[in-house]
């Protein structure tokens, strides 16, 4: 026997409460047919506030109607351990969340079961209506969070109309769930609202001869006055009809919806009070649930009146179905699928939305044809019994529950820690094997990612990071001049090489075949011993080559190259990098802003799929990170943005910048932090450093210095300390820097880096003294 765990809202229709609510009816619409099929069901229902007596315990468990029903207060419903224990004990085959807000416990639930989520109405359209009603957009985010969480979590979805199903497909697309894996998979099914099979019986006189004359033509409103209710048209149409026919009366059972819409109904009441026909508006307010159907029998027509808004377009109307149970015909504004279809089948009356005159005319016409109206009501009842039953509307769900499966894109995300082990997918073994292999291969990357993630978290938490308010880089110290750029400027490409035979061809081929034509290329060779300069001069005679006799370091080499550069823009490229087409044009485009001094690239690893750099981050102790490092490039960093620095592997700057802030600081020789220092000085002078996502380069990291070599572990912290000492005050060193440096050393620094770090500290120790006197001098002078 299949086991189904249902999350829903209560009260359910059979409970003895004062009111019925759409979500409760909806849950019952799903549960009842599967119970009839022999499915074992447990319902965990969150109770709607203020419906049950105050003394009701937080959790009430009942076994009736063939299933176990947990009636839960909000605190219990959100208690993930309680929900998990029920789930683990029950071991369901599938899960149903009936209505969106019943999905709340799903976010914390560990399960491998397929999940069917019923989206009972389009929540963002509802949020819009509510935002309009209260003139407040703050609802939107809350509703959207719920919606997106549900859409991410579900394997299959149901909606109340085809229109809503299509809207949901749109949302799934934005959530990137329409992928190669899910092509051809139908995510959304329409399950329209349905009427219960038991018909109502007239068991008490509540209206005729009590509040209104026997001969009256009664137009009935029942249910809440919701955000979508067009009380303007309703009131005008009714007043106009009442003026022309003294038999027309309006009866309303229902009122404001506490906590959801407390505006529409009071506004309508105010209009009614000021009307000259106010005595023919009988506003009964909310009446007991067991009396409501008697009003249906004593009325001539039920009226439903919408404003034009997306909530109405995507939604449905339970009240119309309730009227059909009693054989009461309806007069409906043509908006939602149900209110368009019923008039087409001749089982309801329609009128154009928002047209009070047409509404009035229709009421008068119906008032003069009472027999025909009654016949339509009976026809509607028959139509409902044939087409809109619980059983017929939920056929798709009933079929699914026989062999529930996960969505194709969720197949590989089976949660191993789940207690539900009775779901077996034929590809499970293969999937697990692949997962195992993937885990092994990506082990190192994952470790790195964890570390980076931690650094990022630290960075975002802290206010002294580069983007924080008190960062030196953000100080408005404007000293530079605007640097305009001419059209199609000459770009000087500067490449510093050292023993680069392995990479240089890839690098230079990409440069000479580049689609930006106005370029010159200057190569500075730092005394390579592997024949690199000869190789370049033999094979690339068109390039300018400068040979150094010995290795003077990257920084010095760059400055040599810059002294020979004649272009308006200098593009600095590492020997182990290659440029992609369009790169230079994109960089020039970005640099055309007169305040953009430096433009960096999106840098990819050699696989051309994994990101290496999408702009740089500077931490409080001078450590650096790259946005997007080791992430798959899926367009998540495809936006130009201002950054603290860009990596020196491939970046461009205006030659004019050199006159404003100087060249690369030789103190950072042989390598590391020279580009950060350069960018930092540019920002200090009021220029922008911009990451340009359309400029793409490929980079094999550190072939010249060897990343993660012992030399790297020494040079990197040494230059970091130099950078901090150069730009930050002694007070900063003693305070913020010391705190964060110590925390990093204790918590994150690998042990093998300790000795190089001590060497680095020793190497720059005299500079601490110098920094102290520098600041002291400044203070005295000031």
């Amino acid at each position, binding site marked *: 026997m299949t086991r189904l765990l249902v999350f829903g809202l209560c009260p359910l229709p059979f409970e003895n409460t004062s009111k019925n609510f759409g979500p409760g009816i909806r849950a019952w619409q799903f549960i009842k047919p599967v119970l009839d099929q022999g499915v074992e069901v447990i319902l965990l229902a969150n109770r709607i506030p203020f419906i049950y007596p105050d003394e009701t315990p937080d959790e009430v468990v009942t076994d009736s109607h063939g299933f176990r029903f947990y009636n839960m207060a909000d605190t219990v419903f959100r208690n993930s351990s309680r929900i998990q224990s029920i789930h683990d004990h029950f071991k369901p085959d599938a899960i149903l969340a009936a209505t969106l807000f019943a999905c709340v416990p799903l976010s914390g639930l560990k399960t491998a079961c397929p999940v069917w989520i019923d989206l009972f109405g389009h929540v963002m359209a509802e949020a819009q209506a509510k935002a309009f009603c209260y003139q407040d957009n703050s609802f939107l985010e809350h509703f959207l969070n719920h919606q997106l969480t549900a859409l991410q979590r579900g394997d299959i979805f149901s909606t109340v109309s085809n229109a809503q199903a299509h809207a949901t497909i749109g949302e799934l697309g934005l959530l990137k769930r329409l992928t*190669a894996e*899910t092509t051809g998979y139908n995510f959304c099914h329409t399950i329209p609202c349905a009427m219960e099979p038991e018909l109502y019986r007239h068991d008490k006189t509540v209206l005729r001869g009590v509040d209104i004359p026997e001969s009256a033509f009664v137009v009935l409103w029942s249910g809440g006055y919701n955000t979508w209710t067009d009380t303007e048209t309703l009131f005008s149409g009714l007043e106009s009809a009442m003026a022309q026919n003294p038999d027309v009366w309006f009866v309303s059972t229902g009122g404001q919806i506490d906590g959801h819409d407390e505006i529409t109904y009071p506004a309508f009441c105010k209009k009614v009070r000021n009307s000259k026909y106010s005595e023919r508006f009988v506003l009964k307010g909310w009446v007991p649930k067991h009396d409501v159907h008697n009003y249906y029998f004593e009325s001539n027509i039920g009226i439903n009146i919408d404003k034009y808004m997306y909530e109405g377009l995507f939604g449905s109307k339970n009240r119309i179905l309730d009227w059909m149970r009693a054989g009461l015909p309806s007069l409906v504004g043509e908006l939602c699928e149900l209110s368009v279809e019923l008039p087409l089948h001749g089982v309801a009356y329609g009128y154009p939305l928002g047209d009070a005159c047409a509404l009035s005319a229709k009421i008068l016409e119906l008032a003069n044809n009472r027999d025909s109206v009654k016949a339509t009501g009976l026809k509607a009842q028959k139509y409902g019994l044939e087409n809109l039953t619980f059983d017929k509307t939920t056929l798709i769900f009933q079929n699914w529950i026989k062999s529930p499966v996960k969505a194709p894109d969720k197949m590989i995300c089976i949660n191993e820690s789940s207690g539900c082990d009775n779901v077996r997918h034929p590809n499970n073994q293969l999937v697990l094997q692949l997962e195992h292999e993937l885990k092994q291969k990506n082990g190192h990357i994952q470790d790195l990612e964890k570390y980076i993630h931690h650094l990022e978290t630290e960075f975002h938490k802290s206010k002294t990071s580069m983007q924080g308010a008190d960062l030196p880089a953000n100080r408005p110290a404007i000293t530079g001049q605007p640097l305009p750029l001419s059209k199609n400027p000459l770009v000087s490409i500067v490449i510093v090489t050292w023993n680069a035979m392995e990479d240089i061809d890839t690098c230079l081929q990409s440069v000479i075949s580049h689609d930006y034509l106005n370029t010159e290329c200057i190569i500075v060779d730092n005394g390579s011993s592997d024949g690199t300069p000869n190789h370049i001069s033999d094979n690339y005679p068109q390039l300018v080559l400068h040979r150094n006799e010995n290795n003077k370091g990257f920084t010095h080499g760059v400055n040599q190259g810059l002294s020979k550069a004649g272009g308006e823009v200098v593009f600095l490229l590492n020997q182990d990098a290659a440029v992609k087409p369009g790169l230079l044009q994109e960089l020039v485009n970005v640099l055309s802003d007169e305040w953009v001094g430096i433009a960096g690239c999106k840098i990819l690893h050699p696989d051309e799929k994994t990101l290496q750099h999408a702009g740089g981050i500077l931490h409080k102790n001078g450590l650096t990170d790259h946005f997007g490092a080791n992430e798959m490039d899926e367009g998540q960093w495809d936006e130009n943005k201002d950054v603290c620095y860009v990596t020196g592997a491939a970046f461009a700057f205006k030659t004019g910048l050199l006159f404003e802030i100087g060249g690369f600081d030789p103190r950072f020789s042989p390598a590391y932090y020279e580009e950060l220092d350069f960018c930092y000085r540019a920002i200090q002078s009021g220029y922008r450093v911009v990451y340009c996502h359309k400029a793409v380069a490929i980079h094999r990291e550190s072939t010249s210095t060897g990343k993660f070599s012992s030399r790297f572990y020494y040079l990197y912290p040494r230059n970091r300390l130099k950078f901090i000492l150069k730009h930050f005050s002694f007070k900063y060193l003693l305070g913020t820097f010391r705190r964060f440096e110590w925390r990093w050393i204790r918590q994150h620094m690998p042990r093998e880096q300790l000795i190089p770090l001590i060497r680095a500290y020793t190497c720059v120790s005299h500079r601490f003294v110098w920094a102290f006197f520098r600041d002291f001098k400044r203070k005295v002078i000031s």
Partner: protein
Amino acid sequence: MSKVLLLGLNPLPTQNDICTLAPGKRTWQFLNPLLKNGHRVCLICSRHLAAQQKSDQKLVNAEEHGNLIYYSVTQSVFENIHWLQRIHDHFEPDCIVGATVYPSYMAAQLNSDRPLWADLFGHIMAEAQTKSKVFTDNYYVARLWNQEKAILDRADVLSVVSQPQEYATIGELGARFRLNRLTTGYQFTHVIPCSISNTTTIEKTVPEKSLVRGVHVPENAFIILWSGGYNTWTDVTTLFSALEEVFSRFSNVYFVSTGGEITSHDEITYKQFLKQIQNSRYRSRFVMRGWIPFNEVAAYVRESNVGINIDLFSYEGILGSRNRLMDWMHSKLPIITSELCELSKVIKKHSLGITFQPENTSELVDVLCQTITNSVMLESFAEKAFDYCNRYYSADATTKPLQEWVVSPEKAPDHVDYFRPDSFSVPETFQHLFRHYKASIVNNIRSGGLVHTAQWILARTPGLRRLTR
């Protein structure tokens, strides 16, 4: 009359180019009524890669015909936002219209306070899905998502090709916070279905002589025609199986195909189909003509007995439309199509052609056999379809909402303020402005002295500007 900056894609149907694709037709569908109504239009079209092969074409080709300024540019120029911005600033349009998704995306990048009508010609995320399936790479999903996002955030009105796509777009707008208190009751989207093309210039040049019968197939052959690109949604497997089965039953049936792979979009599906054909024992009855000049297509249509359209079950099909169906209806060519998109449902509902369920080979075989043996039925369908598309699917009738909007274009209610109230970039933007302003003052003091700086400040201060005159 308004000044409209229209961004679109080439080649237009009037160019009689090889490989006329749906985006070009869509651009033409938008352009034609605007010109007819007397608006001044600046049309900038990116040349499609497939049509960009001719080496003699200049980067930018500018022409002026009456009310139309027409720039035909390469994709690299089209993507150069500075170039587009310059044209925009020079033309000073009253509104901007992007015809099809990619031009709409570029239009959304423009720094402009003019209202933007963005045409979502097919549901882009569903297209990304089918493309990802064909290339087995989800890269396209992320890439196209960025375009979609930019359009949804910037556009004031959106047009789509079908009602299902309209609803999907509203769903997306909700997820981008565009369904808010300011836009309640505002109609963001309009359905502009594909239209028949009124390219009379081309119809006059249709060759009179036979191009198919007696040339590639026998005179008495029953020709099943495919015309257009083999796109990601094309179900070549079902098509091939069904045709093989039909060929085995009828010796006079031929399959004629004009069109082929779509460069830079789908270069796999067509090749797969060709491979299947190569291994078929009926390969001589598959006449694969590849891309042919646009005016010759009309001759192929004229000489064929029935046109076939066949979709995989996908959201792209459900939400999208099919231009080729419209072309065939307009050319009185009877249609067999899978029942998926809204247009195919219209065809079924009004008996304008024959439909079958997607990916159902046996049903397709039955339908084909039925059509081969009952030519009278086909003719009646074709006549009815011709009348129907002329009445409801002319460029003029389909673009009514656009024509009305262009007369007095307005921004969406939540775009009336230049800065969106909930935008996080507002403080940053002001910071930048303030920084630049401060820098300019410092420069002015240095270069021109205090008096000059005071004048400079007054000239830029609203309300005090006249003091400097």
